[in-house]
């Protein structure tokens, strides 16, 4: 039980339409979050296309935990802790590689890429009774893959990945449906963008439809972008609570109203004829047109995977006031003309120098400084409470600029924090 449980209580800090500022600044809250969210629930780790070949591996993370994602010779994916079971040295140093075994640089202990301890130097120094079987690399006990997205959970039991994703799994279906081959290729590498802000500032901002016209007005005004209008007072787009802390800005109502294939991506079919032909061949012309109208999802999967149409962000907390956003471009396996455009648009928009994300990041850091001020103590999330409604699937929705997603995130957050106390 943390000091928060004992002295304050989560119900006092998290109300339906406001939350207490200390949730972003209190190190005890952060420590409790690691145990109850990051080391318990399903967290996105990587994509199968990052380890395409047998014996490929990449160094990943679950919050501050260093994780190796490996593919063994049989093709199975493993999530191993990057910590030698002897004296705790980091086993893998390179960001990626191909090896059937990992050898610790400190004393040469050698592990298979499935985590099994294969042996160590000068074995006469051990009496032969030590159990090699018990000295394999630590592992993330539960690994599940949906549509190529690899998630890990440090909890031995609990909801399955599909139970955790619930209706939000459709976001991954919609994302993959736009790839004519039915597969994504996330091998363009990740930018790592560091901010001095609490991780929840980022999660809340991803599906905040209220900020774009303010935070991003500089780029909208010089780059003829239609994004701003999607998040205006007149927009028919919806903000949605998908359950389990997953949230969405559903822009499809606007795209359907505008009825322009690939309008969601700011382009037209004649600019990417190869992609359009592939999508039509795979789906038929009618379905392909629907896909090109509806576009790619804008969904935040709690707690760390943000699908932002043509980009994927992974949120990694490192301290109560320090967070890294990893971001890469969505690439459809086998669609070079579309991929080239998605990559170049992504490079322009995101990361430390991005036209959009540099300004979001400035807001995160300003928020973090502001929330230390003593009064009024609370962060207000009331926007649109009077016009919330249920959609045909029973999900709470609001207007494009409403704070339905933020309330949904905190509702789920509170349930996780209370469950762990």
């Amino acid at each position, binding site marked *: 039980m943390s000091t928060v449980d004992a002295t304050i209580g989560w119900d006092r800090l998290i109300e339906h339409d406001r939350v207490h500022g200390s949730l972003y600044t209190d190190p005890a809250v952060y420590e409790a979050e690691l145990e109850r969210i990051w080391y318990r629930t399903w967290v996105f780790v990587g994509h199968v296309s990052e380890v395409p070949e047998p014996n490929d591996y990449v160094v990943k993370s679950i919050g501050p935990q260093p994780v190796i994602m490996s593919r063994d010779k049989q093709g199975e994916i493993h999530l191993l802790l990057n910590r030698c079971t002897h004296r705790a040295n980091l086993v893998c140093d390179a*960001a990626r590689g191909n090896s059937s075994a990992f050898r610790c640089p400190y004393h040469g202990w050698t592990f298979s890429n499935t985590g099994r301890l294969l042996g160590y130097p000068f074995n006469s120094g051990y009496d032969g009774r030590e159990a090699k079987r018990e000295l394999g690399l630590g592992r993330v006990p539960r690994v599940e893959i949906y549509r190529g997205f690899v998630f890990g959970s440090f909890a031995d039991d609990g909801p399955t990945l599909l139970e955790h994703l619930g209706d939000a799994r459709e976001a991954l279906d919609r994302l993959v449906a736009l790839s004519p081959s039915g597969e994504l290729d996330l091998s*363009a*590498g*990740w*930018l*790592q*963008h*560091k*901010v*001095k802000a609490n991780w929840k500032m980022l999660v809340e901002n991803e599906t905040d439809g209220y900020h774009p016209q303010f*935070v991003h*007005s*500089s*780029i909208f*005004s*010089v*780059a003829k972008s239609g994004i701003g209008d999607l998040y205006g007072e007149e927009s028919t787009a919806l903000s949605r609570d998908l359950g389990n802390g997953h949230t969405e800005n559903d822009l499809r109502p606007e795209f359907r109203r505008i009825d322009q294939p690939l309008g969601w991506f700011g382009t037209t079919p004649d600019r990417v004829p190869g992609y359009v032909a592939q999508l039509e061949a795979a789906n038929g012309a009618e379905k392909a047109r629907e896909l090109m109208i509806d576009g790619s999802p804008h969904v935040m999967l709690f707690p760390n995977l943000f699908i932002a149409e043509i980009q994927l962000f992974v949120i990694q907390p490192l301290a109560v006031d320090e967070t*890294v956003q990893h*971001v*890469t*471009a969505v690439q459809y396996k086998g669609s070079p003309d579309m991929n*080239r455009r998605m*990559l*170049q648009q*992504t*490079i*322009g928009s995101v*990361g*430390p*120098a991005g*036209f959009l994300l*540099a*300004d979001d*990041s*400035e*807001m995160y*850091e*300003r928020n973090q*400084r502001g929330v230390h001020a003593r009064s009024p103590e609370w962060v207000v999330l009331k926007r649109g409470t009077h016009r919330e409604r249920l959609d045909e699937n029973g999900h709470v929705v609001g207007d494009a600029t409403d704070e339905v997603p933020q309330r949904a995130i905190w509702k789920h957050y509170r349930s996780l924090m209370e469950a762990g106390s």
Partner: protein
Amino acid sequence: MSALPLNLDRLLEVQQFVYREARLQDEHDYDGWEALWADDATYWVPANGDAIDPTREMSIIFDNRSRIATRVKQLKTGKRHAQAPPSRTRRVVSNVELLADDGEELLVGANFAVYESRERGLTVWAGRSTYRLRPTGDGLLMAYKKVELVDNDRAIYTLAFLI
């Protein structure tokens, strides 16, 4: 790479150009900086190493000339929050070396250290720039600038001032 025969006038011209660019960047003279670029220019800040393929992999910046113009226009709106107010920066550019001269363009290398002060605190940026400079009737123009940050394979803070 072996040394070129020493052409002092050329070297001084190159040095003055590199120093002028640094001053225009530090003083947020966005128009002055943009005027240094050739019409077909490329401005590249790679990520995850210096030898990646920017047409297939993520970069921190990979601007063609039109995107350089957009970058400058965004800064000039005054609402580019990551640079409103602008960072106070001062940079030291050193080890300026003329690496090659093919008669059309000069290949120039230089190291830099930038001190950036914002509300967050003081951030140090260091790395190496490689330029392709094109002599014209109006002096040198940048046809290409590649900025290799020493920490481009790690998590870095927002980089919205001109690097």
